[in-house]
């Protein structure tokens, strides 16, 4: 139980750091379901293996591109959104693993992006799975991590 809570705290810190530093998005944990428009996933292997999914609304993804690159709404392209969302799950994964155990080597897969609309529910969590929801002024974010 303690380990589960520690892992959740490490994951949350990794998410906060990535979204604040790279995208200037300030997140607040919430218990809401997240109706998302896109999802990016990454796998990691090493002393522990697993997968991380990042699920976002279109509004949040748009703001991330604008904030990161300093462009207006007209400068946001589909390709930039895809790149940005893939980069977010890549950084969350790398940052989490480094905070989890920086003495070990983990391999990250190439992130995969999908246009997919669905609802992410926090209460779906099962053993070795962490489901987190966040809100920001730009939109909602869901993050799911599972150890295999």
């Amino acid at each position, binding site marked *: 139980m303690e380990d589960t809570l520690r892992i959740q705290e490490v994951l949350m810190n990794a998410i906060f750091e*990535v979204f604040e530093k790279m995208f200037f998005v300030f997140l607040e944990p919430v218990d809401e379901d997240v109706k998302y428009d896109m999802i990016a996933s990454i796998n990691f292997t090493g002393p522990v293996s697993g997968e991380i999914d990042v699920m976002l609304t279109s509004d949040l993804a748009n703001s991330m591109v604008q904030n990161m*690159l300093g462009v207006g709404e007209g400068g946001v392209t589909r390709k930039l959104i895809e790149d940005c969302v893939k980069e977010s799950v890549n950084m969350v994964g*790398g*940052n989490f*693993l480094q905070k989890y155990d920086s*003495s070990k080597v983990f391999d*990250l897969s*190439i992130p995969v992006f999908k246009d997919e609309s669905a609802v992410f529910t926090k209460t779906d969590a099962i053993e070795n799975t962490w489901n987190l929801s966040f809100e920001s002024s730009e939109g909602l974010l869901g993050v799911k991590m599972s150890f295999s």
Partner: protein
Amino acid sequence: MSFNVLIVDDSGSMRAIIKKIITISGFQMDQCLEAENGREAMEVLSKSWIDIIISDINMPEVNGLEFLDQLRKSETLKEIPVIMITTEGSSERMQEAFDRGAKGFIKKPFLPEDIKKILFQVIGVSENGGYIEDSGSVDECDF
């Protein structure tokens, strides 16, 4: 004196933000060329003079570590300083990159100051234009 920079990253948004940071950092950049992976980077290097390379590790086709190996095999390219910029921050992975010839290491997420600082250190030029005596290898910025 101005420098030609090659940014190697499969993410277009990441290449764009790195280019923007270098542009506004005061670093004397002449040309900024881009490649999506190590294979494309070798093609760019066969056609253009590059003074410094900033490369991701986790890329499709030819990743950053394999790219370092290819550079090291070339008499004409092996002296080009390479800064690795990556999410993979384990000390063992950093050492692996340094052993293969990387001169600097930046972990994502980063602040603009992190790139600026390491860029000046690796190229051996201070921000006011003077030369730094021995730049050597530069560990990651202090996050």
